[in-house]
């Protein structure tokens, strides 16, 4: 499935969020079951499955990681199968950040959580920026080295995302208690 085609958007990493929302709402309206009350059973089924596809495409394109993965999937399967890695330096840093965050959570040190969150956000934004740059050069030509670089950056983005998810959980817990 090509979520870009489903929503009628150009196949590129930088999507305009306003445009994305607008396309989504238009299709939602056009495919709404109320519009098919008089239609035949097969037409109703078709519109329903199309609506499901539109929802899924929207969910993918709205998400910075999933949208990147969708673009990469459209470029072809990953070389070397499913086993993907990040560098050991990167892993070490990821481990240190996760440990520091776990310690801060345990100590209920919210200002330390805040500092780590700021660091993770900066890393996330920088990786996101690099990824957008790689994808824009991929739009010209899909050189294997560039594709590999994009894959590595998506993986890094997922690690940063996980850290930020953990930060949100800690904040929610702190607010609840």
């Amino acid at each position: 499935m090509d979520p870009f085609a489903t929503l009628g958007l150009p196949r590129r990493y930088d999507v305009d969020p306003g445009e994305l929302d607008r396309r989504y709402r238009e299709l939602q309206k056009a495919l709404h079951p109320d519009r098919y009350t008089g239609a035949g059973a097969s037409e109703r089924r078709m519109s329903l499955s199309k609506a499901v596809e539109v929802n899924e495409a929207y969910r993918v394109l709205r998400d910075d990681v999933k949208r990147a993965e969708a673009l990469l999937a459209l470029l072809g399967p990953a070389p070397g199968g499913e086993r993907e890695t990040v560098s050991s330096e990167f892993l070490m840093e990821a481990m240190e950040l996760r440990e520091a965050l776990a310690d801060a959570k345990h100590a209920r040190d919210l200002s330390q959580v805040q500092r780590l969150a700021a660091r993770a956000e900066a890393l996330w934004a920088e990786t996101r920026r690099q990824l957008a740059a790689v994808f824009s050069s991929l739009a010209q030509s899909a050189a294997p080295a560039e594709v590999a670089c994009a894959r590595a950056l998506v993986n890094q983005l997922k690690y940063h995302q996980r850290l930020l998810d953990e930060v949100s959980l800690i904040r929610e817990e702190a607010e609840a208690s």
Partner: protein
Amino acid sequence: MAYSKEVIEHYEQPRNVGTLDKEDPTVGTGLVGAPACGDVMRLQIKVNPETNVVEDAKFKTFGCGSAIASSSLVTEWVKGKTIDEALTLKNSQIVEELNLPPVKIHCSVLAEDAIKSAIADFRKKQAERNGERKAENAAPAAQPSQGGK
């Protein structure tokens, strides 16, 4: 998705959570990650260099319940084994013991990678140390010529 009771047991009471000194020459550290889900796992073993028996094992895993249970189980299994025995560990044994569903098999693969990489790290350190010892032994013989009598 429901976790098996074996996974829940290890998840709620993980064995051997902690850290060993990674600068210790008898400690091997394996750090692995699963980019697909952003999991990161560190598994460490302390090995008796005379007998090659794993005397202690610790892990720290940031990931899902299955990843935590897999690494917890591996630390339990390898303690008291020689590193050669520990190397024969297969992820399928973890899958079987923990009743992991197909979508969680990658967690057991991660734990197998972690123990293999910890053993490789220990062996590398030992080889370096042995190399240094040889250099030390060779040093006195070289001294007279340095004296330049």
